[in-house]
C-alpha cells in the first residue's frame, strides 16, 4: 500500500537519504568493515525492513542513522540525510538534540535497554523534558497518554512501576512509549520482537503498525525473521556482509526472490507450502568481516557461482521498477536450473 504511496508522490523529499555509507570499527588488532557502501531512501510514512543474519551489518546500518556507535572506535563515511539534516557531519551537541526528537530507537531487549532503577514514568518524562522543556506535571500527563497509546493496561499505576515489575511484552510497549515520547519523524526498530514470545510478538507488531499509521512516522525495522518482515514492511532490503544485496517491495521479494542468497533464505523458512518437504540449507557460513573475499561476498556459498563473481563486487542491477539486486546472475537472468541443483530438487520431491 505504501509502495503505491511512494509511487504516487515520487517528487516528494525522502525522509532518509543514505548514500555510499561505510562503517568500520577500528581497534589495535584489526579493522572490521561492518557496512560497505549502502545506499537507500525512505519516504515519509514508509516502512523499510532491513533483513539479514547476525553480523550482516543491519544493526550497524540502523545505528548509523543516529550515530549511536561508540564514537572513538567507529569510522563512518558517506552521506546520511535525515529530514535534510546531515548526520555524518553533525556535532555531538547537534546529535543529542536530534536523537529522541527527530529520530528515535526501540531496542531488542527491553529488560536491559531500560534503566532498572528508574521508573517507567521517569524514563519517559525525562525525554520529553529534555527536548521540550515542559513542566514535570505536563510531562507526566503526556507520559500517561503515551502509555495509553501503547495500550498498557492500568497506565496510571504503571508510570510508577520499575522495569522489572512488568512482563516482557509490557516492557517492550514501555520501550516503545519511551521512543515515541517526542513524536519522532523516524522510528528505528532494532529487532524489537526478537526477545518476545510468538503471541506477544504479533501484538507488538500490530501495535507498531497502528501507531505508525496514527503518527505518520517513517520506520526502519531490522530483523532476521522473514515472517516479521513480511508482516510489517512496505519494502525489504536484504543485507549480506555489509552490503544491500537485494531490495524490493515486500510481496514481490517474498514471492520471487532474485538473489541466490535470498532464495536460499526463503528455502530455509517454514511456510504452510513447505509442509512435508525437507527445508534446504545454505551451505557454508557467513564471511569474516575482517577478511572479505575479493568479489561477491556470497560467491563461496553460491550454487550459481561463475568465475566472474569472484572478480569484482557486482553492481546493483535494476531488474524491475523499485527493484534492485546485487548479482550478475539473478533469478531472471540465468538458465532455469543447473543440472546439479535440478537433481537435488528431484531427490527432495515427495
Amino acid at each position: 500500500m505504501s509502495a503505491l504511496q511512494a509511487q504516487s508522490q515520487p517528487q516528494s523529499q525522502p525522509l532518509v537519504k543514505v548514500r555510499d555509507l561505510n562503517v568500520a570499527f577500528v581497534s589495535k588488532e584489526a579493522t572490521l568493515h561492518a557496512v560497505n557502501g549502502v545506499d537507500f531512501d525512505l519516504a515519509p510514512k514508509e516502512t523499510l525492513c532491513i533483513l539479514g543474519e547476525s553480523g550482516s551489518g543491519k544493526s550497524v546500518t540502523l545505528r548509523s542513522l543516529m550515530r549511536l556507535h561508540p564514537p572513538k572506535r567507529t569510522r563512518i563515511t558517506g552521506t546520511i540525510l535525515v529530514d535534510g539534516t546531515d548526520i555524518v557531519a553533525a556535532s555531538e551537541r547537534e546529535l543529542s538534540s536530534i536523537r529522541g526528537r527527530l529520530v528515535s530507537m526501540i531496542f531488542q531487549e527491553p529488560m536491559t535497554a531500560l534503566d532498572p532503577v528508574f521508573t517507567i514514568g521517569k524514563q519517559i518524562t525525562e525525554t520529553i523534558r529534555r527536548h521540550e522543556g515542559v513542566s514535570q506535571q505536563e510531562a507526566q500527563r503526556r507520559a500517561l497518554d503515551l502509555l495509553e497509546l501503547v495500550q498498557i493496561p492500568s497506565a496510571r499505576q504503571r508510570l510508577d512501576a520499575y522495569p522489572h515489575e512488568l512482563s516482557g511484552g509490557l516492557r517492550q510497549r514501555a520501550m516503545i512509549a519511551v521512543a515515541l515520547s517526542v513524536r519522532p519523524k523516524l522510528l528505528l526498530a532494532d529487532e524489537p520482537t526478537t526477545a518476545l514470545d510468538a503471541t506477544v510478538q504479533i501484538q507488538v507488531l500490530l501495535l507498531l503498525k497502528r501507531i505508525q499509521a496514527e503518527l505518520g512516522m517513517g520506520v526502519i525495522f531490522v530483523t532476521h525473521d522473514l515472517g516479521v518482515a513480511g508482516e510489517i514492511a512496505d519494502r525489504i532490503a536484504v543485507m549480506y556482509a555489509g552490503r544491500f544485496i537485494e531490495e524490493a517491495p515486500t510481496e514481490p521479494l517474498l514471492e520471487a526472490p532474485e538473489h541466490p542468497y535470498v532464495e536460499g533464505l526463503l528455502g530455509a523458512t517454514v511456510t504452510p507450502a513447505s509442509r512435508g518437504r525437507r527445508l534446504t540449507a545454505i551451505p557454508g557460513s557467513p564471511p569474516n568481516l575482517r577478511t572479505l573475499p575479493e568479489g561477491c561476498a556470497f560467491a563461496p556459498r553460491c550454487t550459481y557461482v561463475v568465475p566472474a563473481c569472484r572478480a569484482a563486487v557486482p553492481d546493483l542491477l535494476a531488474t524491475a521498477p523499485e527493484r534492485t539486486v546485487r548479482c550478475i546472475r539473478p533469478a531472471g537472468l540465468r538458465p532455469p536450473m543447473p543440472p546439479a541443483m535440478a537433481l537435488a530438487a528431484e531427490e527432495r520431491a515427495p
Partner: protein
Amino acid sequence: MIFYIVRRVLYSIPIALSVGLVCFLLVYISPGDPISAIAPPDAPAEMIAQLRRDYGLDKPLPEQFLIWLGRVVQGDLGHSLATGRSVWGEVSVALQNTVSLAVAACTLAFALGMLLGGLAAAFRDTWVDRLAMTIAVAGVSVPHYWLGMLLVAVFAVTYPLAPSMGAGPGGTFVWDWAHLPFLILPMVTLSAIPLGLVARTVRGTVIEILHQDFITTLRGKGLRSGGILLHVAKNAAPSVLAVMGLQLGYLMGGSILVETVFSWPGTGFLLNSAIFQRDIPLLQGTILVLALLFVALNLVVDLGQALLDPRIKR
C-alpha cells in the same frame, strides 16, 4: 518497604545477641582468672571465694550471662578495673572522639575516592586513569601507621604545620577552631585505605554500568552527559554505598595503630590500654559497643541500598 525494614531489624536481633554472648565469653576465653587481676597475689582462699560471690562468678555460666545481659540492656557495662570509673562513661567519651575522626576521614575519603574513581572511569585507559589508580593502590597498600609516622615527621616535625599528638585542649575532640588542627593528620592517615577502596569500586562499577545497554538507550533519547551521569550515579550508588558503609564501620571501630601513633583518645586507644592492663570489663564493654555499632551501621546500609535500588526490596 515497611515490611522490609521490620524484617531487617528483626534479623539483626539474633546477631546482636550472639555478639553479646561472644563478648561475655571473652572473660572465660582469655587466659587467666579474672579474679587474679583484682585480688593481691597472696590473698587467702576465703577472700578469693568472697570476691567470687561478690562478682557473681560462683553461679552457673548461663545464669551469669543472663544477669550480665540484663544489666547491659539497662546500659550498665560495669566498672573499669583500672580506674574504677564506669565503662559506659569511658567508652562514650572515646567513641565520641573516634566517631568525629571516622566521620571526618570518611568524608574526605569518599569525596576524593568518588572523584578519583569517576575520573578514572570517564578517562579510562588514559594517563588520568593510571594516575588515579596508582593513588588508589598506594592508599590501600601503604601501611597506615607508617604513613602516619611519615606525616608526623614531615608536617609536624620538619614543617610544623599541624599538631601531631592528642585531640586538642581538654583531651576530648569538639568541632571548633581550637581543635580542628589536631584532626588533620590522623584524618588524612585514616582516609588512605577507604579512599583507595572507594576509588577502585567507583571506577569498576561505573565502567560496568557504562557498558550496559540502557546507556545506549539514554544516548539514543538525546540525553546530554549530565543527564546520563544521573543514571550512572543512581545505578552505582548501591555498590558504592555498601563499600562506604563497611569502611565507615571499620573506622568507627577505631584504628588501634593510627590512634596510638597520634595519641588520639578514641576507642582504639582505649582498647589498646584495656588489653595491656588486662582490664576485662572495659575490654568487654568497648568491644560490645563497637560490635553493636557495626551491626547497626550494616542495617542502615542495607536499608539505604533498598531505598536506592527498587529490585532489592521484596
